[in-house]
Protein backbone atom coordinates (compact mmCIF):
# COMPACT_ATOMS: atom_id res chain seq x y z
CA UNK A 1 0.00 0.00 0.00
CA UNK A 2 1.35 3.41 -0.80
CA UNK A 3 2.62 5.45 2.12
CA UNK A 4 2.54 2.54 4.52
CA UNK A 5 5.70 1.12 6.03
CA UNK A 6 5.61 -2.06 8.03
CA UNK A 7 2.34 -3.28 9.41
CA UNK A 8 -0.77 -1.10 9.88
CA UNK A 9 -4.19 -2.29 10.90
CA UNK A 10 -6.62 -1.59 8.06
CA UNK A 11 -8.39 1.17 9.99
CA UNK A 12 -5.13 2.99 10.66
CA UNK A 13 -3.99 3.41 7.08
CA UNK A 14 -5.93 6.60 6.35
CA UNK A 15 -5.87 9.46 8.84
CA UNK A 16 -9.30 10.57 9.85
CA UNK A 17 -8.26 13.65 11.77
CA UNK A 18 -7.00 15.99 9.14
CA UNK A 19 -5.33 19.38 9.07
CA UNK A 20 -8.64 20.92 10.18
CA UNK A 21 -8.36 19.09 13.48
CA UNK A 22 -4.90 20.61 13.78
CA UNK A 23 -6.41 24.00 13.21
CA UNK A 24 -9.07 23.61 15.85
CA UNK A 25 -6.80 23.53 18.92
CA UNK A 26 -4.63 26.15 17.25
CA UNK A 27 -7.50 28.59 16.90
CA UNK A 28 -9.00 27.97 20.34
CA UNK A 29 -5.47 28.40 21.67
CA UNK A 30 -5.20 31.83 20.10
CA UNK A 31 -8.52 32.73 21.72
CA UNK A 32 -7.42 31.63 25.17
CA UNK A 33 -4.05 33.36 24.81
CA UNK A 34 -5.54 36.62 23.63
CA UNK A 35 -7.94 36.59 26.54
CA UNK A 36 -5.17 35.98 29.04
CA UNK A 37 -3.39 39.01 27.62
CA UNK A 38 -6.52 41.08 28.13
CA UNK A 39 -6.83 39.80 31.68
CA UNK A 40 -3.31 41.04 32.38
CA UNK A 41 -4.70 44.53 32.07
CA UNK A 42 -8.03 43.98 33.68
CA UNK A 43 -7.25 41.74 36.60
CA UNK A 44 -3.51 41.91 37.07
CA UNK A 45 -3.43 45.64 36.42
CA UNK A 46 -0.46 45.56 34.06
CA UNK A 47 -1.18 49.01 32.70
CA UNK A 48 1.69 48.93 30.21
CA UNK A 49 -0.14 46.54 27.94
CA UNK A 50 -3.40 48.48 28.11
CA UNK A 51 -3.17 49.64 24.45
CA UNK A 52 -3.77 46.04 23.41
CA UNK A 53 -6.61 45.34 25.82
CA UNK A 54 -9.49 45.91 23.48
CA UNK A 55 -7.70 44.52 20.47
CA UNK A 56 -7.03 41.35 22.45
CA UNK A 57 -10.71 40.99 23.30
CA UNK A 58 -11.81 41.56 19.70
CA UNK A 59 -9.17 39.12 18.46
CA UNK A 60 -10.37 36.52 20.93
CA UNK A 61 -13.94 37.01 19.77
CA UNK A 62 -13.19 36.77 16.06
CA UNK A 63 -11.13 33.62 16.49
CA UNK A 64 -13.69 32.10 18.83
CA UNK A 65 -16.39 32.57 16.21
CA UNK A 66 -14.32 30.59 13.72
CA UNK A 67 -13.15 27.92 16.18
CA UNK A 68 -16.04 25.47 15.70
CA UNK A 69 -16.03 25.72 11.91
CA UNK A 70 -13.12 23.31 11.31
CA UNK A 71 -15.01 20.74 13.36
CA UNK A 72 -18.17 21.31 11.36
CA UNK A 73 -16.28 20.83 8.13
CA UNK A 74 -14.72 17.68 9.49
CA UNK A 75 -18.06 16.12 10.35
CA UNK A 76 -19.81 13.94 7.82
CA UNK A 77 -23.18 15.12 9.10
CA UNK A 78 -22.66 18.58 10.55
CA UNK A 79 -26.42 19.08 10.80
CA UNK A 80 -26.41 16.50 13.58
CA UNK A 81 -23.92 18.39 15.72
CA UNK A 82 -26.54 20.47 17.59
CA UNK A 83 -27.81 17.19 19.06
CA UNK A 84 -24.82 17.44 21.32
CA UNK A 85 -26.51 20.47 22.91
CA UNK A 86 -30.05 19.16 22.80
CA UNK A 87 -29.43 15.76 24.32
CA UNK A 88 -26.05 16.02 26.03
CA UNK A 89 -24.60 13.00 27.73
CA UNK A 90 -22.77 13.60 30.97
CA UNK A 91 -19.93 11.30 29.94
CA UNK A 92 -19.29 13.14 26.69
CA UNK A 93 -16.39 15.55 26.99
CA UNK A 94 -17.36 17.11 23.69
CA UNK A 95 -20.91 17.85 24.87
CA UNK A 96 -19.87 19.28 28.21
CA UNK A 97 -17.31 21.53 26.65
CA UNK A 98 -19.78 22.58 24.02
CA UNK A 99 -21.49 24.40 26.85
CA UNK A 100 -18.20 25.80 28.05
CA UNK A 101 -17.73 27.18 24.57
CA UNK A 102 -21.13 28.87 24.59
CA UNK A 103 -20.60 30.18 28.07
CA UNK A 104 -17.22 31.55 27.16
CA UNK A 105 -18.53 33.14 23.98
CA UNK A 106 -21.61 34.80 25.43
CA UNK A 107 -21.15 35.25 29.14
CA UNK A 108 -17.48 36.11 29.05
CA UNK A 109 -16.30 37.56 25.75
CA UNK A 110 -19.37 39.21 24.31
CA UNK A 111 -20.44 40.46 27.72
CA UNK A 112 -17.08 41.88 28.58
CA UNK A 113 -16.71 43.57 25.20
CA UNK A 114 -20.19 44.98 25.49
CA UNK A 115 -19.53 46.37 28.95
CA UNK A 116 -16.26 47.87 27.89
CA UNK A 117 -17.65 49.49 24.76
CA UNK A 118 -21.03 50.49 26.06
CA UNK A 119 -20.26 54.16 26.32
CA UNK A 120 -19.00 54.29 22.72
CA UNK A 121 -21.89 52.22 21.48
CA UNK A 122 -24.39 54.59 23.02
CA UNK A 123 -22.57 57.66 21.70
CA UNK A 124 -22.30 56.18 18.24
CA UNK A 125 -25.92 55.17 18.19
CA UNK A 126 -26.70 58.85 18.63
CA UNK A 127 -24.11 60.20 16.19
CA UNK A 128 -24.00 57.78 13.26
CA UNK A 129 -26.59 57.56 10.51
CA UNK A 130 -28.51 55.03 8.46
CA UNK A 131 -28.00 51.33 8.86
CA UNK A 132 -25.01 51.78 11.15
CA UNK A 133 -27.17 53.77 13.53
CA UNK A 134 -29.60 50.87 13.66
CA UNK A 135 -26.79 48.40 14.32
CA UNK A 136 -25.49 50.47 17.22
CA UNK A 137 -29.04 50.99 18.49
CA UNK A 138 -29.55 47.25 18.64
CA UNK A 139 -26.22 46.88 20.38
CA UNK A 140 -27.24 49.30 23.11
CA UNK A 141 -30.06 46.88 23.90
CA UNK A 142 -32.23 49.94 24.27
CA UNK A 143 -30.43 51.41 27.23
CA UNK A 144 -28.79 54.81 26.82
CA UNK A 145 -27.72 55.06 30.40
CA UNK A 146 -24.09 56.07 30.43
CA UNK A 147 -24.16 57.96 33.66
CA UNK A 148 -21.04 58.06 35.80
CA UNK A 149 -22.53 55.52 38.16
CA UNK A 150 -23.61 53.05 35.52
CA UNK A 151 -20.16 53.10 33.93
CA UNK A 152 -18.69 52.54 37.34
CA UNK A 153 -20.92 49.52 37.77
CA UNK A 154 -19.83 48.25 34.34
CA UNK A 155 -16.26 48.58 35.46
CA UNK A 156 -16.90 46.49 38.56
CA UNK A 157 -18.91 43.86 36.72
CA UNK A 158 -16.33 43.74 33.93
CA UNK A 159 -13.66 42.96 36.46
CA UNK A 160 -15.69 40.05 37.81
CA UNK A 161 -16.37 38.81 34.29
CA UNK A 162 -12.67 38.80 33.52
CA UNK A 163 -11.97 37.03 36.76
CA UNK A 164 -14.48 34.34 35.84
CA UNK A 165 -13.12 34.45 32.31
CA UNK A 166 -9.64 33.31 33.26
CA UNK A 167 -10.69 29.86 34.49
CA UNK A 168 -13.16 29.72 31.61
CA UNK A 169 -10.39 30.36 29.12
CA UNK A 170 -8.28 27.72 30.82
CA UNK A 171 -11.17 25.30 30.77
CA UNK A 172 -12.00 26.02 27.15
CA UNK A 173 -8.51 25.37 26.01
CA UNK A 174 -7.66 22.79 28.62
CA UNK A 175 -10.41 20.60 27.28
CA UNK A 176 -8.85 20.48 23.84
CA UNK A 177 -5.78 19.03 25.48
CA UNK A 178 -8.02 16.93 27.69
CA UNK A 179 -9.71 15.36 24.67
CA UNK A 180 -6.37 14.20 23.37
CA UNK A 181 -4.81 13.49 26.73
CA UNK A 182 -7.66 11.22 27.75
CA UNK A 183 -7.42 8.89 24.76
CA UNK A 184 -5.77 6.07 26.60
CA UNK A 185 -5.47 3.88 23.53
CA UNK A 186 -3.01 6.30 21.99
CA UNK A 187 0.34 6.49 23.78
CA UNK A 188 1.31 9.64 21.85
CA UNK A 189 -1.66 11.49 23.33
CA UNK A 190 -2.48 9.79 26.58
CA UNK A 191 -0.84 12.03 29.16
CA UNK A 192 -2.29 14.11 31.97
CA UNK A 193 0.23 16.80 31.07
CA UNK A 194 -1.50 17.31 27.75
CA UNK A 195 -4.11 19.91 28.88
CA UNK A 196 -1.47 21.85 30.78
CA UNK A 197 0.93 21.92 27.86
CA UNK A 198 -1.91 22.96 25.59
CA UNK A 199 -2.85 25.84 27.84
CA UNK A 200 0.64 27.22 28.13
CA UNK A 201 1.37 26.98 24.43
CA UNK A 202 -2.04 28.58 23.86
CA UNK A 203 -1.12 31.54 26.03
CA UNK A 204 2.17 32.01 24.21
CA UNK A 205 0.59 31.81 20.77
CA UNK A 206 -2.32 34.09 21.67
CA UNK A 207 -0.05 36.71 23.17
CA UNK A 208 2.27 36.52 20.16
CA UNK A 209 -0.73 36.80 17.83
CA UNK A 210 -2.14 39.89 19.51
CA UNK A 211 1.28 41.49 19.73
CA UNK A 212 1.84 41.03 16.00
CA UNK A 213 -1.66 42.26 15.21
CA UNK A 214 -1.13 45.30 17.37
CA UNK A 215 2.15 46.12 15.70
CA UNK A 216 0.79 45.54 12.20
CA UNK A 217 -2.41 47.52 12.75
CA UNK A 218 -0.57 50.39 14.38
CA UNK A 219 1.80 50.53 11.42
CA UNK A 220 -1.17 50.48 9.06
CA UNK A 221 -2.73 53.37 10.94
CA UNK A 222 0.59 55.18 10.66
CA UNK A 223 0.78 55.61 14.42
CA UNK A 224 3.72 55.09 16.70
CA UNK A 225 3.99 51.67 18.28
CA UNK A 226 3.94 51.97 22.05
CA UNK A 227 7.31 50.42 22.76
CA UNK A 228 6.71 50.15 26.48
CA UNK A 229 3.65 48.09 25.67
CA UNK A 230 5.35 45.65 23.30
CA UNK A 231 8.34 45.38 25.64
CA UNK A 232 6.02 44.28 28.41
CA UNK A 233 4.10 41.89 26.19
CA UNK A 234 7.34 40.37 24.96
CA UNK A 235 8.50 39.94 28.53
CA UNK A 236 5.37 38.03 29.51
CA UNK A 237 5.56 36.05 26.32
CA UNK A 238 9.14 35.12 27.14
CA UNK A 239 8.34 33.98 30.67
CA UNK A 240 5.31 31.97 29.69
CA UNK A 241 7.20 30.46 26.79
CA UNK A 242 9.88 29.27 29.19
CA UNK A 243 7.26 27.55 31.32
CA UNK A 244 5.66 26.07 28.23
CA UNK A 245 8.95 24.79 26.92
CA UNK A 246 9.95 23.31 30.27
CA UNK A 247 6.64 21.49 30.51
CA UNK A 248 7.02 20.07 27.04
CA UNK A 249 10.54 18.96 27.81
CA UNK A 250 9.33 17.46 31.07
CA UNK A 251 6.80 15.47 29.09
CA UNK A 252 9.51 14.38 26.68
CA UNK A 253 11.99 13.41 29.37
CA UNK A 254 9.28 11.55 31.19
CA UNK A 255 8.49 9.55 28.08
CA UNK A 256 12.12 8.80 27.45
CA UNK A 257 12.71 7.76 31.05
CA UNK A 258 9.55 5.69 31.29
CA UNK A 259 10.28 4.10 27.88
CA UNK A 260 7.14 2.03 27.84
CA UNK A 261 6.27 -0.43 25.09
CA UNK A 262 5.37 2.37 22.69
CA UNK A 263 8.66 4.15 23.07
CA UNK A 264 10.69 2.51 20.32
CA UNK A 265 7.96 3.16 17.83
CA UNK A 266 7.38 6.79 18.84
CA UNK A 267 11.07 7.48 19.06
CA UNK A 268 11.51 6.15 15.56
CA UNK A 269 8.69 8.35 14.36
CA UNK A 270 10.19 11.48 15.88
CA UNK A 271 13.43 10.72 14.09
CA UNK A 272 11.83 10.09 10.72
CA UNK A 273 8.30 11.20 9.83
CA UNK A 274 8.11 13.96 12.42
CA UNK A 275 11.73 15.01 12.28
CA UNK A 276 11.12 18.16 10.33
CA UNK A 277 7.91 19.29 12.00
CA UNK A 278 8.93 18.38 15.54
CA UNK A 279 12.68 18.68 15.92
CA UNK A 280 13.41 21.29 13.27
CA UNK A 281 10.28 23.46 13.19
CA UNK A 282 8.78 23.11 16.64
CA UNK A 283 11.80 22.77 18.87
CA UNK A 284 14.78 24.37 17.13
CA UNK A 285 13.40 27.07 14.83
CA UNK A 286 10.17 27.68 16.68
CA UNK A 287 11.29 27.46 20.29
CA UNK A 288 15.02 27.70 20.85
CA UNK A 289 15.58 30.52 18.38
CA UNK A 290 12.82 32.81 19.73
CA UNK A 291 13.81 31.95 23.30
CA UNK A 292 17.39 33.02 22.65
CA UNK A 293 16.23 36.14 20.81
CA UNK A 294 13.81 37.12 23.55
CA UNK A 295 16.44 36.38 26.14
CA UNK A 296 18.74 38.84 24.39
CA UNK A 297 16.11 41.56 24.56
CA UNK A 298 15.85 40.95 28.28
CA UNK A 299 19.55 41.11 29.13
CA UNK A 300 21.14 43.30 26.47
CA UNK A 301 20.25 46.91 25.94
CA UNK A 302 19.14 46.91 22.32
CA UNK A 303 17.96 49.79 20.20
CA UNK A 304 14.22 50.19 19.89
CA UNK A 305 14.14 49.25 16.24
CA UNK A 306 16.17 46.11 16.88
CA UNK A 307 13.84 45.11 19.67
CA UNK A 308 10.80 45.58 17.47
CA UNK A 309 12.34 43.46 14.75
CA UNK A 310 13.18 40.75 17.23
CA UNK A 311 9.65 40.81 18.57
CA UNK A 312 8.16 40.47 15.11
CA UNK A 313 10.53 37.66 14.21
CA UNK A 314 10.13 35.71 17.41
CA UNK A 315 6.37 36.31 17.48
CA UNK A 316 6.07 34.84 13.99
CA UNK A 317 8.32 31.91 14.87
CA UNK A 318 6.24 31.24 17.97
CA UNK A 319 3.07 31.14 15.91
CA UNK A 320 4.71 28.64 13.57
CA UNK A 321 6.06 26.63 16.47
CA UNK A 322 2.72 26.32 18.20
CA UNK A 323 1.07 25.34 14.95
CA UNK A 324 3.77 22.72 14.47
CA UNK A 325 3.13 21.49 18.01
CA UNK A 326 -0.58 21.01 17.27
CA UNK A 327 0.35 19.31 14.03
CA UNK A 328 2.75 16.95 15.74
CA UNK A 329 0.18 16.03 18.34
CA UNK A 330 -2.80 15.56 16.06
CA UNK A 331 -1.16 14.17 12.94
CA UNK A 332 1.72 12.50 14.77
CA UNK A 333 -0.71 10.58 16.94
CA UNK A 334 -2.18 8.92 13.88
CA UNK A 335 0.95 8.09 11.93
CA UNK A 336 1.97 4.99 13.84
CA UNK A 337 0.21 1.67 14.24
CA UNK A 338 -1.16 0.51 17.54
CA UNK A 339 0.77 -2.68 16.76
CA UNK A 340 3.92 -0.50 16.94
CA UNK A 341 5.03 -2.29 13.80
CA UNK A 342 4.25 0.23 11.12
CA UNK A 343 3.76 3.81 10.01
CA UNK A 344 1.49 5.51 7.57
CA UNK A 345 1.69 8.86 5.79
CA UNK A 346 -0.52 11.92 5.82
CA UNK A 347 -0.83 13.89 2.65
CA UNK A 348 -2.84 17.09 2.87
CA UNK A 349 -5.53 17.39 0.23
CA UNK A 350 -5.76 20.63 -1.64
CA UNK A 351 -9.34 21.40 -2.57
CA UNK A 352 -11.41 18.85 -0.65
CA UNK A 353 -13.73 19.69 2.22
CA UNK A 354 -10.87 19.10 4.65
CA UNK A 355 -8.14 20.33 2.36
CA UNK A 356 -5.45 22.93 2.51
CA UNK A 357 -7.49 25.68 0.89
CA UNK A 358 -10.24 25.34 3.46
CA UNK A 359 -7.62 25.40 6.21
CA UNK A 360 -6.09 28.59 4.84
CA UNK A 361 -9.58 30.02 4.60
CA UNK A 362 -10.11 29.34 8.29
CA UNK A 363 -6.93 31.19 9.14
CA UNK A 364 -8.00 34.20 7.08
CA UNK A 365 -11.65 34.24 8.13
CA UNK A 366 -10.99 35.36 11.74
CA UNK A 367 -8.95 38.25 10.37
CA UNK A 368 -11.93 39.26 8.24
CA UNK A 369 -14.14 39.11 11.30
CA UNK A 370 -11.57 41.11 13.22
CA UNK A 371 -11.47 43.71 10.48
CA UNK A 372 -15.25 44.08 10.67
CA UNK A 373 -15.18 44.24 14.46
CA UNK A 374 -12.42 46.83 14.45
CA UNK A 375 -14.45 48.92 12.02
CA UNK A 376 -17.53 48.62 14.19
CA UNK A 377 -15.84 48.94 17.55
CA UNK A 378 -12.49 50.70 17.13
CA UNK A 379 -10.17 49.38 19.81
CA UNK A 380 -8.05 52.52 19.89
CA UNK A 381 -8.75 55.51 22.05
CA UNK A 382 -9.80 58.49 19.84
CA UNK A 383 -6.49 60.37 19.86
CA UNK A 384 -4.66 60.35 23.15
CA UNK A 385 -2.09 57.58 23.13
CA UNK A 386 -1.80 56.55 26.73
CA UNK A 387 -5.07 55.68 28.23
CA UNK A 388 -5.99 53.02 30.65
CA UNK A 389 -8.52 50.53 29.47
CA UNK A 390 -10.67 51.16 32.45
CA UNK A 391 -10.78 54.86 31.82
CA UNK A 392 -13.65 54.86 29.38
Amino acid sequence: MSGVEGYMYPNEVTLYWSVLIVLYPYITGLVAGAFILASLVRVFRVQAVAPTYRLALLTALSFLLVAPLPLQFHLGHPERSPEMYFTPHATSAMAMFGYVYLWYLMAVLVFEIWLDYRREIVLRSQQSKGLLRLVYKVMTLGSNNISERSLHIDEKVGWIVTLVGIPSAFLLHGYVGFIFGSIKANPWWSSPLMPVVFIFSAMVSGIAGVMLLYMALTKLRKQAIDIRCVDTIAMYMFYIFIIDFSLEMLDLVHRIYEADESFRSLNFMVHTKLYFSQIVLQIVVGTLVPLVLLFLTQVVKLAEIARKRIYVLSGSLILISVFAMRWNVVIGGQLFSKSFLGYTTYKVDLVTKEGLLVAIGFIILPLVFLWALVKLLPPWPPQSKHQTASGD
Partner: protein
Amino acid sequence: MSGLKDAGHLFRFLGLFVIAFLVFWLIRGYVVPKSFGEYGHYRGAAITDIANHPVKFAGHQACEQCHTDIADTKTKGAHAHVNCEACHGALAQHANDPTSMTPVKPDSAVLCARCHTASAAKPKGFPQVDIADHSNGLPCATCHNPHSPVIGSDAKTTDAASATAATGGAK
Protein backbone atom coordinates in the same frame (compact mmCIF):
# COMPACT_ATOMS: atom_id res chain seq x y z
CA MET B 1 -33.16 52.48 44.09
CA SER B 2 -31.03 54.58 41.76
CA GLY B 3 -28.38 51.88 42.01
CA LEU B 4 -30.78 49.45 40.41
CA LYS B 5 -31.65 52.00 37.78
CA ASP B 6 -28.03 52.43 36.83
CA ALA B 7 -27.62 48.69 36.56
CA GLY B 8 -30.70 48.42 34.36
CA HIS B 9 -28.72 47.75 31.21
CA LEU B 10 -27.20 44.68 32.86
CA PHE B 11 -30.63 43.23 33.26
CA ARG B 12 -31.23 43.80 29.59
CA PHE B 13 -28.18 41.69 28.82
CA LEU B 14 -29.45 39.11 31.25
CA GLY B 15 -32.76 39.24 29.40
CA LEU B 16 -30.87 38.34 26.24
CA PHE B 17 -29.71 35.19 27.99
CA VAL B 18 -33.18 34.34 29.15
CA ILE B 19 -34.54 34.80 25.64
CA ALA B 20 -31.74 32.72 24.16
CA PHE B 21 -32.44 30.01 26.69
CA LEU B 22 -36.16 30.02 25.97
CA VAL B 23 -35.52 29.80 22.25
CA PHE B 24 -33.12 26.95 22.87
CA TRP B 25 -35.68 25.16 25.02
CA LEU B 26 -38.38 25.70 22.43
CA ILE B 27 -36.27 24.29 19.61
CA ARG B 28 -35.18 21.48 21.86
CA GLY B 29 -38.75 20.51 22.60
CA TYR B 30 -39.42 20.48 18.93
CA VAL B 31 -36.40 18.54 17.63
CA VAL B 32 -35.78 16.00 20.37
CA PRO B 33 -37.78 12.86 19.57
CA LYS B 34 -40.70 12.25 21.93
CA SER B 35 -39.50 8.86 23.08
CA PHE B 36 -35.99 10.09 23.89
CA GLY B 37 -34.87 8.98 27.34
CA GLU B 38 -37.71 6.51 27.78
CA TYR B 39 -35.29 3.69 28.64
CA GLY B 40 -31.91 5.37 28.51
CA HIS B 41 -29.92 7.94 26.66
CA TYR B 42 -31.47 7.13 23.30
CA ARG B 43 -34.73 7.20 21.39
CA GLY B 44 -37.05 4.63 22.96
CA ALA B 45 -38.91 4.11 19.70
CA ALA B 46 -35.64 3.04 18.10
CA ILE B 47 -36.13 -0.41 19.60
CA THR B 48 -39.37 -1.11 17.73
CA ASP B 49 -37.94 0.55 14.64
CA ILE B 50 -35.02 -1.81 14.69
CA ALA B 51 -37.19 -4.82 15.56
CA ASN B 52 -39.27 -4.04 12.47
CA HIS B 53 -36.31 -4.36 10.13
CA PRO B 54 -36.97 -7.29 7.81
CA VAL B 55 -34.92 -10.36 8.72
CA LYS B 56 -32.13 -10.78 6.19
CA PHE B 57 -30.34 -13.91 7.36
CA ALA B 58 -32.04 -17.28 7.53
CA GLY B 59 -29.40 -19.16 9.52
CA HIS B 60 -27.69 -22.38 8.44
CA GLN B 61 -30.35 -24.66 9.94
CA ALA B 62 -32.82 -23.32 7.38
CA CYS B 63 -30.50 -23.99 4.45
CA GLU B 64 -29.68 -27.45 5.68
CA GLN B 65 -33.33 -28.53 5.64
CA CYS B 66 -33.49 -28.32 1.86
CA HIS B 67 -29.86 -28.57 0.73
CA THR B 68 -29.21 -31.76 2.66
CA ASP B 69 -26.54 -32.96 0.24
CA ILE B 70 -24.43 -29.88 0.70
CA ALA B 71 -25.02 -29.85 4.41
CA ASP B 72 -23.72 -33.43 4.57
CA THR B 73 -20.60 -32.56 2.60
CA LYS B 74 -19.97 -29.46 4.59
CA THR B 75 -20.28 -30.93 8.07
CA LYS B 76 -17.52 -33.39 7.20
CA GLY B 77 -15.18 -30.82 5.74
CA ALA B 78 -12.89 -28.08 6.97
CA HIS B 79 -15.61 -25.48 6.50
CA ALA B 80 -17.97 -27.23 8.90
CA HIS B 81 -18.05 -24.20 11.11
CA VAL B 82 -18.28 -21.59 8.39
CA ASN B 83 -21.87 -20.53 8.03
CA CYS B 84 -23.59 -20.94 4.64
CA GLU B 85 -24.46 -17.29 4.53
CA ALA B 86 -20.94 -16.22 5.38
CA CYS B 87 -20.16 -17.18 1.82
CA HIS B 88 -23.51 -16.93 0.07
CA GLY B 89 -24.64 -13.70 1.64
CA ALA B 90 -27.95 -13.01 3.35
CA LEU B 91 -30.57 -15.30 1.84
CA ALA B 92 -33.66 -15.15 4.06
CA GLN B 93 -35.80 -14.28 1.09
CA HIS B 94 -34.59 -17.37 -0.76
CA ALA B 95 -35.05 -19.61 2.26
CA ASN B 96 -38.61 -18.43 2.76
CA ASP B 97 -39.54 -18.94 -0.86
CA PRO B 98 -36.86 -20.56 -3.02
CA THR B 99 -38.67 -19.78 -6.24
CA SER B 100 -38.82 -16.06 -5.51
CA MET B 101 -35.10 -15.70 -6.17
CA THR B 102 -32.27 -17.95 -7.26
CA PRO B 103 -29.06 -17.05 -5.46
CA VAL B 104 -26.08 -16.33 -7.68
CA LYS B 105 -23.14 -18.64 -7.15
CA PRO B 106 -20.37 -16.78 -5.36
CA ASP B 107 -17.23 -16.14 -7.42
CA SER B 108 -14.70 -18.22 -5.55
CA ALA B 109 -11.77 -16.24 -6.95
CA VAL B 110 -12.92 -13.27 -4.91
CA LEU B 111 -14.74 -14.97 -2.08
CA CYS B 112 -12.04 -17.27 -0.76
CA ALA B 113 -9.37 -14.58 -0.82
CA ARG B 114 -11.45 -12.59 1.62
CA CYS B 115 -10.66 -15.05 4.38
CA HIS B 116 -7.53 -16.87 3.20
CA THR B 117 -5.22 -14.12 1.97
CA ALA B 118 -1.98 -14.43 3.89
CA SER B 119 -1.51 -11.66 6.46
CA ALA B 120 0.71 -11.25 9.48
CA ALA B 121 -2.30 -10.16 11.53
CA LYS B 122 -3.98 -13.60 11.28
CA PRO B 123 -3.32 -16.32 13.82
CA LYS B 124 -0.46 -18.57 12.74
CA GLY B 125 -2.64 -21.67 12.70
CA PHE B 126 -5.18 -20.28 10.29
CA PRO B 127 -4.81 -21.66 6.75
CA GLN B 128 -3.66 -18.82 4.53
CA VAL B 129 -2.03 -18.62 1.15
CA ASP B 130 -0.41 -16.04 -1.06
CA ILE B 131 -3.27 -15.87 -3.53
CA ALA B 132 -1.41 -14.91 -6.72
CA ASP B 133 1.27 -17.52 -6.08
CA HIS B 134 -1.10 -20.24 -5.03
CA SER B 135 -3.87 -20.22 -7.62
CA ASN B 136 -2.23 -18.81 -10.72
CA GLY B 137 -5.34 -16.68 -11.16
CA LEU B 138 -7.68 -19.67 -11.36
CA PRO B 139 -10.92 -19.55 -9.35
CA CYS B 140 -10.32 -21.45 -6.15
CA ALA B 141 -13.31 -23.70 -6.83
CA THR B 142 -11.45 -25.25 -9.79
CA CYS B 143 -9.43 -27.28 -7.35
CA HIS B 144 -11.22 -26.93 -4.00
CA ASN B 145 -14.76 -27.90 -3.27
CA PRO B 146 -16.00 -24.84 -1.43
CA HIS B 147 -18.14 -26.98 0.84
CA SER B 148 -15.30 -29.30 1.74
CA PRO B 149 -12.16 -27.53 0.76
CA VAL B 150 -9.40 -29.93 1.77
CA ILE B 151 -8.30 -31.53 -1.48
CA GLY B 152 -8.81 -35.24 -1.59
CA SER B 153 -11.13 -35.20 1.39
CA ASP B 154 -14.17 -35.25 -0.81
CA ALA B 155 -14.74 -37.53 -3.79
CA LYS B 156 -17.11 -35.13 -5.41
CA THR B 157 -14.51 -32.42 -5.91
CA THR B 158 -15.00 -30.63 -9.19
CA ASP B 159 -13.57 -32.63 -12.07
CA ALA B 160 -10.98 -30.02 -13.00
CA ALA B 161 -9.50 -30.14 -9.53
CA SER B 162 -7.77 -33.49 -9.69
CA ALA B 163 -6.50 -32.72 -13.16
CA THR B 164 -5.04 -29.31 -12.39
CA ALA B 165 -3.78 -30.24 -8.99
CA ALA B 166 -1.96 -33.19 -10.49
CA THR B 167 -0.12 -31.00 -12.97
CA GLY B 168 1.38 -29.14 -10.07
CA GLY B 169 -0.49 -25.90 -10.61
CA ALA B 170 -0.52 -25.41 -6.91
CA LYS B 171 2.09 -25.51 -4.25
